[in-house]
């Protein structure tokens, strides 16, 4: 059997792969260039740090959403789950007076546990992800209010809590680049998620499930278990986001969180992950989240009227994705 195409394909893939990665930033870079020209304030260190800081929470949520979306599912509960985790941390640290590490653990465990439940509802009861996580979104929204007594919980008694997001470990070593820890955590989560996706069995099954779940089942894989594991992992990542937002606001705000899921999913899709599953990258999601926050920041810096900000954001989201599609088509 002769096969003339294989070698050609291989080098083709290599070239286009590198080219791809380079160009994927193009939408982001275009935005940055435009805003830099339009306002001298845009590219200042402080503003760049502000943009990164503004990306941190949505970025982490978007990474959680990326995992789920690659399996072909969706997670509408990321926003309220984040809030619920923040509230749990508040209860553990402020109401129960436990030490900081236990609070951190509690947030991540709470997230993982809720993800486990969503995942089980989806895998075992065969409830579609949209409904299961929509229900979860509402349940967690209500529970956050119930658990917190509809009041914010403050972390004034836990010194150092706000250092989780606001402190700067980098800045204490290199004072000229005071990258806030929140941003560091975002990149750390991204690196771990990218590693898990490409190097572990969990990652392999994440892609496999999104690619053809029935085929995975026919291959004798315990599909349910892996699917639950993906949702649980995503939940744990939402727990990290809960820590970040609680640390930034130095409080757990029980009413916040709904609506954040759309921003997260938007970042994922702008980043080139397909909602039908099987393909996606963490780097893409990071770029997507950055596009969203650069856009918001830039338009505000330019003092564009708020109603027009919305119009422009909507248009640019469509354009960014269209540009990405054009790029892929010509390659």
């Amino acid at each position, binding site marked *: 059997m002769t096969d003339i195409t294989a070698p050609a394909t291989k080098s083709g893939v290599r070239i286009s792969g590198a080219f791809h990665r380079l160009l994927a930033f193009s939408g982001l870079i275009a935005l940055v260039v435009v805003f830099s020209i339009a306002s001298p304030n845009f590219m200042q260190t402080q*503003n760049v740090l502000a943009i990164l800081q503004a990306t941190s929470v949505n970025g982490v949520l978007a990474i959680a959403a990326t995992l789920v979306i690659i399996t072909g599912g969706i997670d509408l509960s990321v926003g309220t789950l984040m809030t619920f985790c923040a509230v749990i941390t508040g209860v553990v640290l402020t109401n129960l007076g436990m030490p900081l590490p236990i609070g951190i653990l509690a947030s991540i465990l709470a997230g993982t546990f809720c993800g486990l439940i969503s995942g089980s509802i989806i895998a075992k009861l065969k409830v579609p992800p949209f409904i299961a996580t929509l229900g979860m979104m509402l349940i967690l929204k209500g529970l956050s209010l119930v658990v917190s007594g509809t009041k914010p919980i403050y972390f004034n008694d836990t010194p150092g809590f706000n250092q989780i997001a606001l402190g700067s470990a980098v800045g204490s070593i290199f004072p000229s680049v005071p990258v806030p820890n929140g941003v560091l955590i975002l990149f750390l989560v991204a690196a771990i998620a990218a590693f898990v996706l490409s190097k572990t069995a969990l990652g392999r099954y994440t892609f496999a499930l999104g690619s053809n779940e029935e085929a995975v089942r026919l291959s004798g894989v315990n599909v349910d278990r892996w699917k639950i594991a993906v949702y649980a992992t995503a939940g744990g990542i939402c727990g990290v986001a809960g820590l970040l937002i609680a640390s930034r606001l*130095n409080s757990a705000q029980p009413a916040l969180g*709904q609506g954040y899921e759309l921003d997260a999913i938007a970042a994922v899709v702008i980043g080139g992950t397909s909602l039908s599953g099987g393909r996606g990258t963490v780097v893409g999601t990071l770029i997507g989240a950055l596009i969203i926050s650069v856009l*918001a920041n830039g338009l505000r*810096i330019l003092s564009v009227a708020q109603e027009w900000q919305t119009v422009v954001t909507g248009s640019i989201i469509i354009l960014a994705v269209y540009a990405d599609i054009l790029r892929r088509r010509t390659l």
Partner: protein
Amino acid sequence: QEKYDIALISKGFQHQFWQAVKAGADKAAVDLGVTVTFEGPESETQVDRQMDMLAAALSRKPDAIGFAALDSQAATPLLQQAKDAGIPIIAFDSGVDSDIPLTTATTDNVAAAALAADVMAELIGGEGKVAVVAHDQTSRTGIDRVDGFVNRLKEAYPKIEVVSVQYGGGDQLQSTEITKSILLANPDLKGIFGANEGSAIGVANGKQELGSKIVVIGFDSGAAQKGMITSGIMNGAITQNPVGIGYQTVQAAVSALKGETLPPIIDTGFFYYDAKNMADPEIAAVLYD
């Protein structure tokens, strides 16, 4: 004898301001021996959701209804229905543009925001650039507070320029990001007015994250805002009397049910408070956590 059943439909639910109104109403319920329920839509834009709540409340056949209209006109048919059914209506917060409510327990938001403008002008020395971070572009309170603040500055302080008015939906995080953008775009800014609790906290957060020195005037109270005023991140804030609004609404409803006559307006008042006067009994009484 059965307890009176009073349904309060407010403009919101999760925000601490509305929770304080609820607390006042609950307190009155205990004091006066009545049952009170309290409900409100998620955001102050959801006029139709509020109508559904009012309709469900009417179906419940309560003895009286307390109502804070998101849009007076939209509510008129249902209010008429309540009136026809002999259910007395007490308006609270920003009032209802109609003669159906027997009385209104309210804050004058325009005047309250004008007071914020006066304080701001004083603290920045009567000139310079200021900005507003508000919660909502279309709700009554959002419009009144922004207009009250901006118009007062325009009339009385021509040397002060409002460079930016932005809206963060009352979401602390979003308001923080907005504040940071405004500060970075306008390095010479002198002060920001945060027009409700979430906005005010966001403004203070943003100031803190950038290590800025601007003047921050907030609105409403809550533990966070009080703490920020104590620590000096926020210079001061305007407070309404939400607990009083809730309490007086229920009280007025009970009076109405007993056939007593009510004044057309119950002005629950507003105050400026800062680190110095926070502990005054008169002020402490209207602040909430």
